[in-house]
């Protein structure tokens, strides 16, 4: 390989090789130092919640705690369902049909977290302001959601999220 008048190249190789090895080593140790910030195993283990929807009267809305956040379970009235179904998709900033969002139209299940910066929108209590579309209103920066939890006006970019859930019996949902 390299002979005497090529000394510098061999030294350069040693330099590059050792710096690369050190960089690789640093990257390997950096990941555990960063990943420890992510949710721990016990935090992940707490991530399902079960709830009996039969207790929610028509026109009523209940907040259930899931992963430290509220999940809204709303038993919608006929009028609210009709209103949600009637919305023109072209009027929606984040177009989605009501049927896609609520497979069982009376029971709407939503993550009660504004998609703007994470406040809990108002509209769960009868006395709360519900916004211009009769669903929810986020007081933090003024986002209005309709009776399907879709964003209609304000800074929030997307509809209220539908958490993953399924019916494990006729009336019991398992969220998460």
């Amino acid at each position, binding site marked *: 390989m390299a002979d005497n008048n090529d000394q510098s190249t061999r030294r350069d190789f040693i330099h590059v090789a050792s710096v690369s090895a050190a960089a690789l080593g640093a990257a390997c140790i950096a990941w555990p130092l*960063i990943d420890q*910030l*992510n*949710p*721990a195993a016990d*935090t992940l283990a707490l*991530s399902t919640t079960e709830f009996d929807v039969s207790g929610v009267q028509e026109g009523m809305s209940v*907040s259930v*705690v899931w*992963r*430290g*956040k*509220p999940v809204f379970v709303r038993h919608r009235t006929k009028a609210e369902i009709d209103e949600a179904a009637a919305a023109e998709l072209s009027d929606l900033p984040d177009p989605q049909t009501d049927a896609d969002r609520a497979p069982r139209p009376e029971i709407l299940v939503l993550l009660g977290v504004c998609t*703007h*910066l*994470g*406040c*809990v*929108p*108002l509209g769960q209590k009868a006395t709360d302001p519900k916004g211009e579309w009769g669903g929810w209103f*986020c*007081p*933090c*920066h*003024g986002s209005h959601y309709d009776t399907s939890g879709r964003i209609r006006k304000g*800074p*929030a*970019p997307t509809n209220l999220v539908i958490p993953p859930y399924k019916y494990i019996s006729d009336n019991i949902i398992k969220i998460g």
Partner: protein
Amino acid sequence: MSGPKLTNPVVRWIDHRLPVFTFLHHEMHEYPTPKNLNYWWNFGSLAGITLVIMIVTGIILSMHYTAHVDHAFQSVERIMRDVNYGWLIRYIHANGASFFFIVVYIHIFRGLYYGSYKAPRELLWMLGVVILLLMMATAFMGYVLPWGQMSFWGATVITNLFSAIPLVGESIVTLLWGGFSVDNPTLNRFFSLHYLLPFVIVGVVVLHIIALHRFGSNNPLGIDVRGEQDTISFHPYYTVKDMFGLSVFLTIMAAVVFFLPNSMGHPDNYIPANPMVTPAHIVPEWYFLPFYAILRAVPDKLLGVLAMFAAIAVLFVLPWLDRSPVRSASFRPIYKIMFWVFLLDCVALTYLGAMPAEGIYVVLSRLCTVYYFFHFIVLLPALSIIETPRSLPRSIGKPVLGGGNGIPAPAPAAAREKP
């Protein structure tokens, strides 16, 4: 510029091996400082002393504080009610944060007025902006610790800013939280970082001062020091002046700590955090309001977040936006006016950040936000070209052009003047 005359043999013995006494003498005693500094130059040392006050009170609070969601609020209430003088120490720390920002903001506007960011002090200025950013992070995380409603929802909204980042935003937020919402892991890491960052600030302050002592302080005339006749030694002249300023500052701070301790806080933070209910009107601490107003002024989530960060980032490049060779606004007739307009704009943004985001407030926030960036990005580069500065004095010792005419320079200085 000779070394100190060390008479004590023990001091001499130590100094020979570890020259701390020579160093201190050089940097804090004989250190030549422009002789024309006005009171706006007091705020640097005030900021340093406030940092020390924050660290001392913070370490004491940590001895009684419990970083756990079930105990944090109660431990702070216990500090207030049961710990001897706990109320005093907490009120000094909580109000101290506000005073720290008041002092640093004045310090920054002093720099803007007198052009202290210009060559050769660009790095000094940029280190200052780094300190500001670290202070903001520290104060934000400190405010989360008492775990009241504002703590919790402030933390939620601010950490959610990162969710605006495309693709990886949500993962970053989960990483910051250590869970699926602001919760116990979040509180613990915030406490850890809140303890750490002030010491990082101390480190950057040291760099800031090294950079300062390279060329010395700027001065109200904004012209370079020409020689010994333009300077006086730091001690006793400025140590005494700084001590006087400090006593005025501490008097005002004591008045607030004893008589208006909650005036700069928000009453909702005396309600324990409730992750299920957001307070009807959430506002950040007053020192974040201008940036909060900029965030809300932009109707798009990602662009709003970017504008907010850009509002600080623009300060980093300020030395290259303002190309005017004249530092002090005293000699820049147009900039002098625009400085006050800009200050007014910042005050307006502070006010608007506290108002609900609706109606006229939204319109005004947008106007003020546009003006904020217009000032830096359009006005300053343009002024560097179109403005005709007034003629500068020849030296600090001879503040009037041509010397001798008009106001005569103070006699002792003139006497010391070299040919």
